[in-house]
C-alpha cells in the first residue's frame, strides 16, 4: 500500500502530458473538423527545437522553451494557412490521409536533420530525484504538473472571459451562425491551430527533459492523444484534460496488475467508454 501514492503520482505526470497534447487536438477537431494525425509531430518538433536551441545554439532552458513554442506556433500558422485551408470542407478520409502524409514527412525531416540518435534536453534544475511522503520524483516532473495546472487555468479564463474565447465557443457550437454574427472564422482557425500546436510543443519541451527526444516520438503521442480525445469526449476541452489524467492513471495502475499489457488498459477503457458513453466522459452529443 505504501506504493500507491507513487503510482498515483506516476500516472498524474504522464496524464498531464497526454492532456496537453490532446487539448490542442480536440480544439482543432472540434473547430475545424479535421482529424490531425500530424499533431504529435508538433510535440516532437517542440522537443527538437528546444534541444537545438539549448544544446547547439546555447540558449538557456527558459528562453529555449519560449522560442521553441513560438517556432512551432509559427509552423502551425503556416500549415493552417496552406495545407489545412485546402482541406477545409474536405471529407474526413482526405484530411486523415493528408495529415498522415504530413506526419510521415515531418518525422523523416527530423530524422534527416537531427539523426536517429536519442537526445536529451538539459533540465533547468539540479538533476537527481527528490522524495516526499515516500514518493520519488524529480523537479522536471513537478514542473510538468505545474505547467499543466497553469494551462488549464489560463484556458478556462481565456475561453470564459475573453471576447476571443467566447467567439471560439460560439464557433464550436454553430459555425455558420457564428459567421453570420460577424465572427472572423479564418482568424479563429489560425489562432486555435497555433495554440494547439504551441501546447503540444510545450509538452514536447517539458517531456524532453524527463525522457529522450527521438524522431519517432510523435507517432505514439498522436495515438495516445486520440485515445484521450475519445475517452474525454470529442471537442470538449475539459474532456481532453480529464481524459488525459484518466488514461495516465489507468496505465499506471494497469502496470501493477499486468505490466506487459499496460497499453492495452487504455484501449480497454476506450472500448468501455464507447459502449456506455459513446460521446466520451464529458462529451456533448456529436452529430
Amino acid at each position, binding site marked *: 500500500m505504501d*506504493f500507491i501514492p*507513487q*503510482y498515483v503520482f*506516476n*500516472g498524474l*505526470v*504522464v496524464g498531464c502530458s497526454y492532456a496537453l497534447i490532446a487539448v490542442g487536438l480536440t480544439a482543432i477537431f472540434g473547430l475545424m473538423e479535421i482529424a490531425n494525425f500530424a499533431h504529435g509531430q508538433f510535440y516532437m518538433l517542440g522537443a527538437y527545437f528546444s534541444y537545438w536551441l539549448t544544446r547547439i545554439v546555447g540558449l538557456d532552458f527558459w528562453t529555449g522553451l519560449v522560442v521553441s513554442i513560438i517556432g512551432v506556433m509559427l509552423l502551425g500558422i503556416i500549415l493552417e494557412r496552406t495545407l489545412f485551408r485546402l482541406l477545409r470542407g474536405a471529407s474526413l478520409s482526405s484530411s486523415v490521409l493528408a495529415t498522415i502524409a504530413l506526419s510521415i514527412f515531418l*518525422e*523523416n525531416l527530423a*530524422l534527416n536533420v537531427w*539523426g*536517429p*540518435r*536519442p*537526445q*536529451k534536453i538539459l533540465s533547468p534544475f539540479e538533476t*537527481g*530525484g527528490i*522524495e516526499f511522503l515516500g514518493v*520519488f*520524483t*524529480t523537479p522536471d516532473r513537478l514542473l510538468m504538473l505545474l505547467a499543466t495546472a497553469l494551462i488549464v487555468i489560463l484556458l478556462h479564463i481565456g475561453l470564459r472571459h475573453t471576447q476571443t474565447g467566447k467567439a471560439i465557443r460560439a464557433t464550436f457550437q454553430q459555425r455558420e451562425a457564428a459567421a453570420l454574427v460577424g465572427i472572423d472564422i479564418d482568424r479563429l482557425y489560425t489562432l486555435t491551430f497555433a495554440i494547439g500546436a504551441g501546447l503540444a510543443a510545450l509538452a514536447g519541451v517539458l*517531456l524532453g527533459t*524527463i*525522457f*529522450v527526444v*527521438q*524522431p*519517432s*516520438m510523435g507517432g*505514439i503521442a498522436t495515438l495516445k492523444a486520440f485515445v484521450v480525445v475519445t475517452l474525454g469526449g470529442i471537442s470538449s476541452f475539459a474532456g481532453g484534460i480529464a481524459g488525459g489524467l484518466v488514461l495516465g492513471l489507468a*496505465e*499506471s495502475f494497469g*502496470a*501493477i496488475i499486468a*505490466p*506487459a499489457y*499496460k*497499453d492495452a488498459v487504455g484501449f480497454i477503457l476506450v472500448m468501455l467508454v464507447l459502449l456506455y458513453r459513446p460521446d466520451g466522459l464529458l462529451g456533448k452529443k456529436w452529430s
Partner: protein
Amino acid sequence: MSKLSFRAKVLFATLPLMLATSISSFAETIKIGAVIPMTGPVADDGAAVLKGAKLAVKLFNDAGGLNGDKIELLVEDGACIPAQSVAGAEKLLSANKVVALAGAFCSSSTGATMDVALRYKVPMVAGISTAPNLTERGNRYLFRIQATSQMLADAFAPKMMEIAGGKKVAFLVVNDDWGRSIAQYYKASLERGGAQAVTTQIFDTNETDLFSYITNVKRAEPDAIMMAANTQNAVTLTEQLRQMNVKSKLFAEGSFTAKSYYDAVGKKGDGIDGLMAYVSSFDNPVNKTFVDMYKEAYGELPNNNASAGFEELTIVTNAIKTAGKAESEAIRDAIASGTTQGPSGEIKFNEKGQGYGFTVFLTRNENSKPVVEATALIAKPN
C-alpha cells in the same frame, strides 16, 4: 554513297567503342542486401550496424573484389517491425536479386525475415538477434554470429551471482522476442545457481515513462536487476532507475556500452555490468584493423552493433572468396563449412547455423567506458 552505307560506316566506327564498354562491364557488381532498422526507436543502433557493414564491403572491394567484381550493399529499412522487415527482404530478393542477406537486427524481425530467405534459398547472416529459438527452426539458410541469450546466461550466471552478492533477481526487459527470451533463459541459468527470480517487468519499446515498472521492481527489493534494452530505452531506464534511487546491482544486454548511450547518460551509466558480444579493446588482429578503420571513417570507437554489422558482411565476403563465385547456394555452403576471423575471435557454425568459437565479455561501465571483468569462450552448442 547511299544512306545505308553511311549508317554502316557509323556502325563500324562505333563498334570498337561499344565493345570496349561491354568488356569493362564484364566486371559485374555482386549485390548483397541488408535489412536494418534505419527509422524508429532502434534507428541509432541500426545506423551503427550499417557503418560496420560498409567497412567490411570496403575491405573486400579495395582488395580487388572477386576477380574484379565489386560488392554493392543494398539497404532496406526494416524499422525492427517484422512486417516491414519482410517487405524489405522481399524487395531485395525479388527486385534487386541479392545473393545474400544480412539482418534484421531485432529477433522478432529476423524470425520473420529468415522465412523469406529460405523461400528464395538465399543465405542470411544475423548479427544482433539473440533469441535462442531462431536457430532451432531447421532453416538451413540462417546463420547467427551472435551468442544467444541462453549461451551468455550460461557463460556468466555464476559470476553474476557473485557480483550481485544476493539471491533475489528482477527482470526489466523490452517487450519482444529478445527481451522475453532474456527473462526466460537468464532466469533458468540463475535459478540453477540458487537465485530466486522475484519479478519480471516487460515494457514496450516505444514507452518513455518507465516509472511504473521501476516502482514494481523496487517493491520486490531485488539484489540484482537484469535488463534488456537498446539505446533509447537504455537511456530512459538508466535515468529513471537513478531518479528513483534504485540501489540494486544492474546487469544488462543491449546498448549500455554504445557511444550514444554514454553521451546521453554520462556518469549515470557507471557501475552497470554488460553482457556483451564485443568490446572495442579486445586484443585480436582483425579487431585492430576494424577499430582503426572505424575510427578513421567515423571518428569514434565501434560498439557491439557496429562490430556485428562488420562481422555479418565479413562472413559473406569470405564465403564469396572461398566459393569463388557469387551464387547463393555456393555462398551458403561456404559459410556453413568455413571459419572466419572476426573482431571477437574465430567463428564457425554448427549444423543449426549457430555460431561458436568466439569470445564474449562481462564488462563494467567505468567513467563512461566498458572495462572487461570476465571473458568466456563460446563452445560448440549441442
